């Protein structure tokens, strides 16, 4: 038990804030981001001994939970993007709004690539998709973002 708790606390110290921020970038809601992150950490704790790479598994759990929460939110509020962010730098709103309109897998791929700085292989692991699909997903997302900003 001690080993798991020690390892878990180390994981928490290292990954908690980054995961909250990743979830926030995917959900635009601080409360929902905490919900997704806490759920991901709880799943990691419960499966601790069965997991090889706790950080990677945590990231997958958090992204999956974000997807669930986003889907639920869509059902509850229709398909209107839910934005509570207050970031107002000139041009940022267009880019972030365009990001919010992407399908969650594209959005997640963009966030993991350009916020977390993950490799395509690590993104593939987190999103459970082949590396080639990651490349095409990011490329397609970037094209849409460019078009949205240049429009």
């Amino acid at each position, binding site marked *: 038990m001690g080993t798991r708790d020690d390892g878990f606390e180390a994981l928490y110290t290292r990954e908690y804030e980054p995961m909250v921020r990743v979830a926030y970038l995917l959900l635009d809601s601080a409360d929902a981001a905490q919900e997704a992150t806490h759920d991901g950490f709880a799943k990691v*704790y419960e499966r601790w001994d069965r997991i090889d790479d706790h950080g990677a598994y945590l990231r997958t759990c958090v992204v999956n939970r974000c997807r669930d929460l986003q889907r639920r939110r869509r059902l509850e509020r229709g398909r209107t993007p839910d934005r509570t962010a207050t970031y107002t730098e000139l041009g940022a709103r267009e880019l972030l709004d365009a990001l919010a309109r992407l399908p969650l897998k594209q959005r997640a791929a963009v966030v993991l690539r350009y916020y977390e700085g993950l490799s395509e292989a690590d993104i593939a692991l987190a999103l459970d998709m082949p590396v080639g699909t990651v490349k095409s997903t990011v490329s397609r997302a970037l094209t849409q973002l460019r078009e949205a900003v240049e429009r």
Partner: protein
Amino acid sequence: MTIIDPVFDAFERRLADQLSTQATTVTAPDDGLEQIRGRVARRRRTRRAGWLAAAAALVLVVGIVGSALRSTDHGGAPYVGDPTSVPTDAPPLLLPTAPNLGVGLATWQLDRGYRMLLTDTSRTVPARTSAPGVVEFSVGPGAIGDGTLPWQPIDVAGQRAEGFLDSDTPRIRWAVAPGYVAQVAGSTGTSGTLDALVADMQQVIASVQPTDEAAMLALLDAGAHSGDREASNGFRLGRPGAAGTYLRQSFGTQLASTLVVPGLPTDTYQLRSDSTSVGADRLPGGPPIEVRGRPGVLDTQQDLGDRAHHLIAWIEDGWQHRLYFTDAVSTDDALAFAESLVVLDDDDWRAAVFPRTVPGDLPDVTWLSFTSDGDGSTATTVVGSGP
């Protein structure tokens, strides 16, 4: 934290910078660890409550059935309903194993990290077929109309089906055998538009056909070993004849099996096998102990999911095997059980994975080819009907 990769262009650098700035507008709470611990505790309580409810429901069902049988024994009203379901003295009909289904003349690409969930009642095969975006194909117990999602009736190739299509991960399920439904799930993230994805999924469904055990085993083997077909000892280590011995999940080079022993709770023994370099070279800490004539370790403080387990671990033929066991048995029992494990031959393994089979009305299916790119990253298989 702004990630600036040297290969980023100006737009990508701007995107990274804005994401970083946006992320700093949220603050992680100070009591996150306490909240997570509370969540873990709540989940445990919820699961326990679920088990208790299930047990209570089982007791209730047993009571009702027993009462009904006693009523029949004492001269109840004559049965006048459907003659095909008239109660008889015949033993209860066991539900057959989930039908084995493949996608005719389609390519299944199984990537590294491939996982397969295979139990004695259901099979889930995450895979990409020739239809882009279709990411998972599964079959298991169920019936059209019993799902929890807001399924909508749809028609697929004239079959009774239902869809959950207003989603990033649309799904279609349809009845494939009495008591079983199959499901194809997709993801728009890999396929462009939802309409195109649904059309692809319908094509997949139209091509689904029964396949035989050999093809399923080959798929299983290919996914579990990603082309390294020699390293199969962990895969095949089992206990022939033990009821319900089956592979539960595989994570590339890591495998987990539940070894069910008649008369013991099903979670008494769990065997996990790891052929990665880390797993095969390093045993966990603990007092040394001899296991199957090899050096091993004993750890009496393992926690596996919700239950405390003990563990004996050893390395054998390049695999680290970990046998977890509960308080239902002693360490000596577990050592004796480990000693009884054998490397299964093909017939034993097949019997363990497919303890029962569907009736023999399946068409003859031919295993067409198996290819690998050589480095184990991808295995491509083709399953199709014989001539």
